């Protein structure tokens, strides 16, 4: 006797309906699951804000591309004058060094890449869920540890760390140079060939691994590629409040109190 023989006795429309209801149940479950721990907000109130943020982010990418293009064209035009007077050649050389120092030129060289990603461990009953996510403080600590280990230039995902860079939390993600970044965070550091050796010997790095990776399961991995690439900073370097302070040697000599007396 065929144990599945009863199926042939069920009308075909009932089988179709059964399959459709099964699909329906699956989709309802998927919809609920997609609003899991990281997404728990109603789309109705978020939707206009998500749309605005999406538009602004697209504008930001466009503006950054424009800035990089303009800087490239200015640099090329200035370099075209390099064959002229010695003073121009000297100024161009100084300008290139200043732009490298400011993070305005993409760099390649020896270095390492550290990746930080959220924990996959279940959140303990008495724990805070944010402890299982990579936060701005984790990224900042890693950047500080890399500087201390001898890194010479650092980028987080595609954002170059410059004198004006702040790294702050925004929900479960972070803002670097006011650019929205989501995990995993790849911290690329240019530095000496033994950069990872120096980093792993640092008590601060060991503490970070113990406190975040071993306790909460934050995933930390690293790579030492042949060469690392760092993007240029695509932001403003025009300061509005800070002005050049004349150097004492450049200042005109002030007449002494007794002069002319």
């Amino acid at each position: 006797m065929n144990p599945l023989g009863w199926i042939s006795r069920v009308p075909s429309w009932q089988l179709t309906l059964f399959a459709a209801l099964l699909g329906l149940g699956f989709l309802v479950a998927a919809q609920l699951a997609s609003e899991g721990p990281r997404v728990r907000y109603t789309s109705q109130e978020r939707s206009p804000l998500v749309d605005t943020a999406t538009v602004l982010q697209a504008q930001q990418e466009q503006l950054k591309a424009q800035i990089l293009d303009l800087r490239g064209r200015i640099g090329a035009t200035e370099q075209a004058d390099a064959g002229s007077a010695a003073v121009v050649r000297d100024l161009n050389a100084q300008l290139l060094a200043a732009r490298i120092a400011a993070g305005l030129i993409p760099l390649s060289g020896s270095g390492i890449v550290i990746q930080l990603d959220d924990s996959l461990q279940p959140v303990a009953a008495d724990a805070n869920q944010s402890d299982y996510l990579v936060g701005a403080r984790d990224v900042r600590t890693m950047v500080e540890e890399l500087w201390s280990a001898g890194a010479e230039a650092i980028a987080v995902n595609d954002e170059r760390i410059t004198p004006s860079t702040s790294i702050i939390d925004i929900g479960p993600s972070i803002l670097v140079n006011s650019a929205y970044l989501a995990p995993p965070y790849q911290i690329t550091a240019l530095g000496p060939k033994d950069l990872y050796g120096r980093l792993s010997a640092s008590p601060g790095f060991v503490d970070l691994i113990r406190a975040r990776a071993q306790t909460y399961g934050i995933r930390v991995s690293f790579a030492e590629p042949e060469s690392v690439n760092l993007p240029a900073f695509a932001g403003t370097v025009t300061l509005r409040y800070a002005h050049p302070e004349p150097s004492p040697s450049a200042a005109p000599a002030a007449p002494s109190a007794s002069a002319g007396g």
Partner: protein
Amino acid sequence: MRRRRNQVTIAAVAFALGLLVVVQLRTQASGAAFAGLSSQDLTVLVANLNARNDQLRREVATLDRELTTIDSNRQRGDASIDELRADLQRVRLYAGSEAANGTGVLIMIRGPIDGSAIEDLVNELRNAGAEAMAVGGIRLVPGTVAIGAPGKVTLDGRTVADPVELDAIGPTEKLTGSLTRSGGLIAQLAATQPDVAVEVTPVDRLVVPATDRNLVPVNGHPRL
């Protein structure tokens, strides 16, 4: 009649199925970009993106003017020396290779603060728009990190003595507000490190020195 009722039932289920597929796909598409951000987070994000885009637009305008001037000078056979000097000063000032002056805040930190708390203050000030900063007379540039246990902070290998002076040039009100607001960093410090006192004073003219670090990497080369 019965056959018609079955068809209606199947049509209703198929409609619900289609609707859910669309909702699911839209949820995944829109939620993926800013997953996990609440409306409040998104409001902060939009404010940040707006402020940053305004800055970027100003930079585009500055660079546009610079390129136009250099181009027209070249056409006249001039070398744009003034533009090169102005550009050099602008970039060096940003990088920290030039001493800077301007309005800002003077922050006096008394008591056994640790390096990490100083870094938190610096990060908060940068986020509020600080343009040039110094701790204990040392200009802050990439690579300069305050490290050490409470009361034993060093910066670039130099000990920073108590009281620690942090100078920040930037928008005075915004800098002050970012630190002193209710629930801000100073309030958090008071709760976690009660022996530390932080005083913020707006100043009309602050001077921060140039860095003495070599900011040009020796392990990398430009990718032009």
